[in-house]
């Protein structure tokens, strides 16, 4: 049973465009929703996170939108850059982080 569903699996965006990755969760006990960025050969690095009492959080070019009633959240990357090309994981935390299956983002120049 997959507790966190992530889409799309891969995404190609032009430089300067908006990248959008969506996630849905099932367990209403989750209380912390981070996004991680992973480059090849590296460990996942925390990008931005949100708690369920907030509907949106913005840090620089990265924004999380959170819809508690729909049990969905998304990551928006504005003005996408080639350096943003990486794998992105959404996650939800109860006693541990449960990850989505990841989205490979390619930003073309």
């Amino acid at each position, binding site marked *: 049973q997959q507790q966190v569903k992530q889409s799309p699996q891969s995404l190609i965006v032009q430089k300067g465009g908006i990248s959008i990755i969506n996630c849905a969760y099932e367990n209403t006990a989750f209380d912390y929703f981070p996004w991680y960025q992973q480059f090849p*050969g590296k460990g996942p690095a925390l990008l931005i996170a949100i708690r369920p009492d907030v509907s949106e959080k913005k840090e620089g070019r990265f924004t999380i939108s959170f819809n508690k009633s729909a049990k969905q959240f998304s990551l928006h990357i504005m003005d996408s850059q080639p350096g943003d090309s990486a794998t992105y994981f959404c996650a939800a935390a109860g006693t541990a982080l449960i*990850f989505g299956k990841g989205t490979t983002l390619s930003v073309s120049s």
Partner: protein
Amino acid sequence: DTAVSQTPKYLVTQMGNDKSIKCEQNLGHDTMYWYKQDSKKFLKIMFSYNNKELIINETVPNRFSPKSPDKAHLNLHINSLELGDSAVYFCASSRRDRTGGYTFGSGTRLTVV
């Protein structure tokens, strides 16, 4: 200073061998974890330790045994290695309330031949 460090970075070994991966964090976190990332990049929780006490033990073969000598260290010992154990293993740590998120190590790529 590396926040979460794992050794070794690469490990190539034959089937049937026993191997260990070491993890240390200098962040003062209370909780440490082991995650397995498969060839499709899926990250799955294996174990969680809080202050040297086992909190989570997901469905993992009992050939895998975590050991936490103190709250800054969490080692993973694997007995009788199998081909299917080939993966990247990540150690991570967090505060109990997850303030600041989970910090991951750079991973250990285990290849069983």
